């Protein structure tokens, strides 16, 4: 007989074990889906999760995709820890890219060591500005941040579309919806010859270190944690709630903006219509899968980045539709949330005595 018993305290070991369980369950369910679609499950899973990262180039691509996911997820963990539901990181990424791209275009055909820092800073500011909208509306007008930040995603994509088709489009570009190429000084340097991985990865690593420090070594981190557990307690303790809401939104906007900078000043080197394959949304899953812990987020971003690469590889080699990647991402989050049940409840197997 199976009996479900409530735990006195959430189990800490299980807290870090369930993400692994969730990934395993996703693989099983994924194999099942492949089987239903008429593919050999093990072969499909191999093409999805192993083949894409089997060589040097593949590994570089993995890091390339994991970088924005990690960066955005780190930012989001500030929001989620303190009970702020910023789900518009995709918009903040886009707007950050627009601002930094605009600045990069100002330096068209100019070179200088100072250009790249300005371009990067512009991206962070762009992301912050965009994230400040839901933050200010939430704090001063009591408006639901989920819906506002999400609506702004659509708006940002339309602004980008307008710019690259209209005023910012490349005059010599035969009406392609893209801007001019940025000058070399406005591009993040590549790390290895022949690979696309670029210096943006250091931005992500810096974010990991800084966030770890803030979460676990500062008063602000403590305040965020308390507000996340109970807003009432936070209020009672006299924390400045409004200030903190705005601050966590700004941090997460800056991170998303930086991810946008990485996308456009990295391998692409220009603004165009589709700068992000929904990194901003996927990063929400990364943040949860990483348990809102900086180190956890590194691992989670690598795992989730594989779903992007795997979807591409599986499409090329097995004609498996590329949206399977998104299906996997959704499933990971489902399984993760579901297995959280084990945090609070114990399943006991008892002998069938009557």
């Amino acid at each position, binding site marked *: 007989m199976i009996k479900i018993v409530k735990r006195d305290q959430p189990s800490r070991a299980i807290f870090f074990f369930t993400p692994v369980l969730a990934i395993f369950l996703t693989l099983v369910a994924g194999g099942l889906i492949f089987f239903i679609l008429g593919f050999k499950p093990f072969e499909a899973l191999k093409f999805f999760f192993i083949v894409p990262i089997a060589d040097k180039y593949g590994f570089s691509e993995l890091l390339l995709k994991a970088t924005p996911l990690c960066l955005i997820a780190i930012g989001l963990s500030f929001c989620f820890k303190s009970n702020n539901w910023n789900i518009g990181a995709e918009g903040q990424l886009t707007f950050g890219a627009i601002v930094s791209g605009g600045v990069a275009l100002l330096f068209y055909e100019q070179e200088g060591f100072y250009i790249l820092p300005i371009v990067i800073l512009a991206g962070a500011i762009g992301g912050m500005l965009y994230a400040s909208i839901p933050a200010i509306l939430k704090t001063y007008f009591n408006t639901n941040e*989920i*819906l506002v930040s999400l*609506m702004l995603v*659509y708006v940002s994509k339309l*602004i980008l579309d307008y710019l690259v088709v209209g005023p910012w489009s490349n005059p010599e570009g035969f009406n392609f919806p893209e801007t001019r190429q940025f000058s070399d000084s406005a591009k993040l340097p590549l790390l290895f010859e022949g690979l696309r991985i670029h210096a943006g990865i250091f931005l992500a690593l810096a974010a990991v270190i800084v966030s770890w420090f803030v979460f676990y070594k500062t008063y602000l981190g403590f305040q965020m944690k308390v507000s996340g557990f109970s807003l009432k307690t936070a209020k009672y303790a006299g924390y400045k709630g409004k200030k903190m809401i705005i601050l966590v939104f700004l941090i997460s906007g800056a991170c998303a903006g930086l991810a946008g900078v990485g996308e456009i000043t990295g391998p692409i080197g220009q603004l165009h219509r589709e700068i992000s394959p929904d990194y901003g949304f996927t990063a929400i899953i990364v943040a*949860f899968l990483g348990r809102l812990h900086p180190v956890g987020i590194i691992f989670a971003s690598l795992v989730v980045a594989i779903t992007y690469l795997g979807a591409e590889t599986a499409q090329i080699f097995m004609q498996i539709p590329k*949206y399977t990647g998104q*299906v996997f991402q*959704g499933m990971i989050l489902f399984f993760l*949330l579901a297995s959280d049940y084990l945090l609070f409840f114990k399943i006991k197997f008892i002998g069938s005595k009557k």
Partner: protein
Amino acid sequence: MIIDINFIGLIIASIMASAVPLILASCGELITERSGVLNLGVEGMMIIGAISGFALMTVTGSLIIAIFGAMLAGVLISTIFAFLTQTLITNHVATGLALTIFGIGISAMIGKNFVGIPGKEFPVLFENLKDTIPLIGPILFGHSIVFYFAFALPFVTNYFLKKTKLGLIVRAVGDSPVSASNQGIKVRLVRYLCILYGGAMSGLAGAYLSMIYTPQWIENMTGGRGWIALALVVFSTWNPIKILIGAMIFGGLTIIQFHMQAIGVRIPVQFLTALPYIVTIIVLVVISRDSRKIRLSTPSSLGKSFHKDN
């Protein structure tokens, strides 16, 4: 310039047509939220409904199977959400987001084989009465059955919530699950049913898009309508009749876009397309500014998990 009075009627009718999916999805979500559950997966359930309806129509050739199949698909996908949030007590927001991501992925996967296939013509009712009355004729007659259903739904929903015992139970569960449970009401069961009902209505909204409004399958064809439907529920302050008003405003914004382009207004198309989203934000701000009013009309336990052991 002579403006044909029937032309105005046609514009109003087209605004109403574009409001239909919003009304359906919002009224469904409204019931879900009234029971205390916040399901952010509307966009995902809608797109599942859209592909299910279109695929079933293409494969079986039956419109009835397709419409009910789409609703069933909405129910099935919302069952995942219900099981997670009610039985496994997961966070509503995160689970809803997962549902949307999952739904968009699955729909694109199924839809791969249905891209570019032309849709079928959906039968309309009272077509012959259209020209009998000027202005009113084109507004009232010549629409699909789903259209009429959608415009009746807010009134039915209102009656259900205010005048029936079941409606009272739903409200009780949403406002005070603990007392409802003490009264012997099965809180979890009521919430399960309300979630599944919301799924059915979102599925129907999606099917309306892919089978009637623009009869074809396009990836991501819901284009944020699910999120606007969620915003409409806040806009309505959980009152079904006001959903009707909100949906007409957003339908109007969508239609104006096309007409502005047609008469050659020199505004970039992207700004017009962005209008419904921007207006949603502005409307949300105006509505939510009065925090007391929002607090009074929001179901008290909205988004909070309920577990008997707690």
